[in-house]
């Protein structure tokens, strides 16, 4: 696994898995190296077998700058922002669900939709500022990123992390990852906060 992940030391991941008690598993995305190849989305789709139109992980492109002066070279930049579920500390989707189908697991902080309970009303999609819950038109239920809970429970990292070609996406426990990032690139944290949902996914640029 360490060959797949040369930037983040293997110890950080192992420490995350071993940390006892209530914790918050999350992802760290380093936007500086993201090349917008969508391989995280493809890895996710293959792993979770999601139908067309249901994307647990989306990569959003943002163009910045404009052609101001025709004589000078343009000051343009394109950013790619991979958007999984933020597995928020205070999930807006959970508060909005009328039937209590969304739960946040205490042991690892993963927010999950109980598809058996879900009535497909899409209130969670309205409430989520990040567009994470996706409507499965076939099954008439909502689905979203599970942080590959089936892999994480076996001690494996989520599929999007292992397929990331640019090595810009990492898995770990929130506090351990935050400590590590603060040691590495302190000034470059980017906040995705919208409202007061306390998103757990970390971004750096």
């Amino acid at each position, binding site marked *: 696994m360490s060959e797949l992940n040369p930037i983040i030391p293997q110890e950080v991941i192992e420490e995350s898995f071993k940390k006892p008690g209530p914790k918050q598993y999350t992802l760290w995305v380093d*936007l500086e190296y993201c090349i917008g190849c969508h391989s995280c989305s493809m890895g996710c789709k293959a792993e979770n077998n999601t139908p067309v*139109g249901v994307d647990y992980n989306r990569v*959003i492109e*943002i163009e*910045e700058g404009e052609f101001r002066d025709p004589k000078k070279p343009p000051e343009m930049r394109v*950013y790619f*922002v991979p*958007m999984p579920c933020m597995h928020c500390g205070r999930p807006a989707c959970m508060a*909005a669900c*009328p*039937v*209590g189908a969304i739960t946040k697991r205490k042991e690892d902080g993963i927010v999950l939709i109980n598809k*058996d*309970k*879900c*009535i497909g*009303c*899409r*209130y969670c*999609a*309205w*409430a989520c*500022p*990040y*567009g994470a819950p996706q*409507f499965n*038109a076939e099954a008439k239920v909502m689905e979203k990123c599970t942080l590959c809970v089936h892999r994480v429970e076996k001690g494996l990292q989520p599929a999007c992390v292992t397929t990331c070609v640019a090595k810009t996406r990492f898995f770990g426990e929130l506090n351990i990852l935050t400590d590590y990032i603060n040691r590495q690139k302190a000034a470059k944290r*980017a*906040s*995705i*906060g*919208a409202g007061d949902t306390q998103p757990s996914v970390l*971004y750096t*640029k």
Partner: protein
Amino acid sequence: MRIAEKVVNTIADNHHMSVETTLCSRFRTPKSDCSFCIDVCPVNAIKISDEGAEIKEGCIDCGVCYSACPNGALRIKGRDDRKIIEEIRSEVTGQKSEIFRISCEHGDRTADLVVPCLSRLTEALLLEAARAASVKILRPPCQGCPSAKASSHLDRIIQSTSCLYEMMDIRDALHVTHCTFSPIESRTQNSEPEILSRRELFMSFSVKAAGIASASIPDIGQKNKESGEIFREAIQNRHENLKRSILLKSIGNVISNPDSRAVEPVNVPSENAILSDVEIASGCMGCGVCAKLCPTGAITQCWTEDRFRLSFSARLCTNCRICVKTCLYNAVKTKDTVSLNLLLEQKEVVLFEANRNVCAVCKIDFTGDGSDLCPLCMNRHKKQTKMIQKLFK
């Protein structure tokens, strides 16, 4: 035999009360804060969780929770309302008295109708009793009673019943008289310990437990029903709100009586009313959550070829306000006052009607005009872009 009986009762007794979980508001949505049954249960034998109300050990079969639950989720296995109505009828035909006296076990036990606790009474029972005579409730002081906790509910029943009397123009028919409190003599007095053979002990088990094994099998099935796949289906198969059906039948009986007077319009504040008048304000998106979660089927939705319709039958509404609490768009409202005459209305009212559209992206049905995209798909990109731009500032 006494000790053995107690042991057998504790082990084999699977409660006299049962719960029709799908009618319980707390099962249908965690947004409901209904607590009528636990507020009145004198022995705290009801537990409420996300799985709805559940009867625990210690139930004394008083039936007060049945009377308190607006949705009729709690049911009595033995002497239920239908049996008591039969008792009332036979009592009324037997005697020529002008007054029908009702008391609890601690009051006057010679009354025409004796119920375990006066809070066990329902509007339907009081209506049935009032058909032939004027009703007199003999109420002993509740302070010393073990069921004192339930006493607050009696006032509520009397209040709503007198409104119903007013509607049907039964004047001067309900009186509450105080009487003395007489404790029930304990059956344990003067009893001597008794010798019981092992055979007798097991025989008493087998007598008491006959049929319990078979009765408990569907209960196990019910447990599985509550979690998983079936929640979605469970909220769709609606069970009848027996309490309301009995009340509507009693009202119908009173009205169809040739001696009865004309029905008068009565409006009551909808705060504690037995029904509410639901209306849809602007902002309805046609999500159908109110119809899906309504426990009694008072609100129903219907998608036709090109229209979406929400219908409401007020006579089934129990004022549980699930529709108001769950609507994300705050489109469902209840009127401040409600007319009790709506109980007599057989027809459904159309609450909301709009054109049906299918979203080109997510393939969901939605209401509205002139757009191929549902409002959610339309706003999604804008919402995300706006938020992500913050990342780089």
